[in-house]
């Protein structure tokens, strides 16, 4: 593989890794749940009610 090919492949790999990490950490994408290795976390999420400590 040429040097240009390696750099292109590396750039694509880095972009993919960043996108994957962003989706996992910030966008609620759970790869383990998608692969059926874990029950969907959505079902286990607690029911949250937002409030300010005012009467």
């Amino acid at each position, binding site marked *: 593989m040429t040097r240009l090919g390696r750099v292109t492949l590396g750039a694509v790999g880095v972009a993919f890794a960043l996108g994957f990490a962003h989706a996992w950490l910030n966008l609620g994408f759970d790869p383990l749940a998608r692969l059926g290795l874990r029950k969907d976390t959505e079902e286990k999420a607690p029911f949250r*009610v*937002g409030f300010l*400590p005012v009467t």
Partner: protein
Amino acid sequence: MRFSGWPELKEAFLSGHNPASFMLAPMAMALRQQGVPVKIVYLGHRDGSALMVRKDSGIYSMRDLKGKRLAVPNRFSNQYLVIAKALEDNGLTLQDLTILEMPPPDMPAALYAKAVDAVISGEPFMAQTELDGYGRVLYQAKELWPNFISCVLVVREDLIRDHPDQVQSLVNGIAQSGLWLDQSMNHRMTAAKAVAETYYNQDPRLLRYVLSKPPDRVTYTKLRLVKQDFEEIERLALKMEVLDGPVPFDQYTDTRFSENTTGVGPYPWEAP
């Protein structure tokens, strides 16, 4: 899930982090007007807001506020609207004083440091200025606007569609808690301790004070949605340009859950 300021709470709600939230009534109406799929399903409480000044301020009426600095929780709050209404009743306008938006927890310190001349918000932050010895009640909000509404329970429409049973349980729980609270002073004192330590992380003495001095400083019954109440909020919000245009009551409320609380009684629970 506890927040310190209304903007943060609103953003968390919009992101879907919490499918239900207690929120300022005009803020919820404005969100709906902007196309956010949410509905008001119940009230959080009635009254329980006060306009405070420093003891040594020499401010004894709305007219004395002319040229002063006043902190409100948010422009999309009934506290902002009640100030506008009271000023208007006294021949003044919002342009006659400087209005600042400030998170309620920051208000006592701002009043103490004379960063502002007056503050208005929900309790217990107003009572804190009294207990600490430098604040004085200029008006309870209910003196300016009887049956004052501050916070309402807002839920996302997808929750109503997919889990109406959960919404009803939540509304029933609030209704039963409110009836239980207003049943006796003993209940209020028990709740003050539990809520202060478990949810609010505040001095129980402060909540005991808020819930008893006077006993109707804040009330937790009559929380069903009443169209006339919201029409008054809408009227003032339109006048103060908090809302861009009229919003039909049916568009931003779902009264089914509120109506289903008819006949619900207080929790039969007694403190051990």
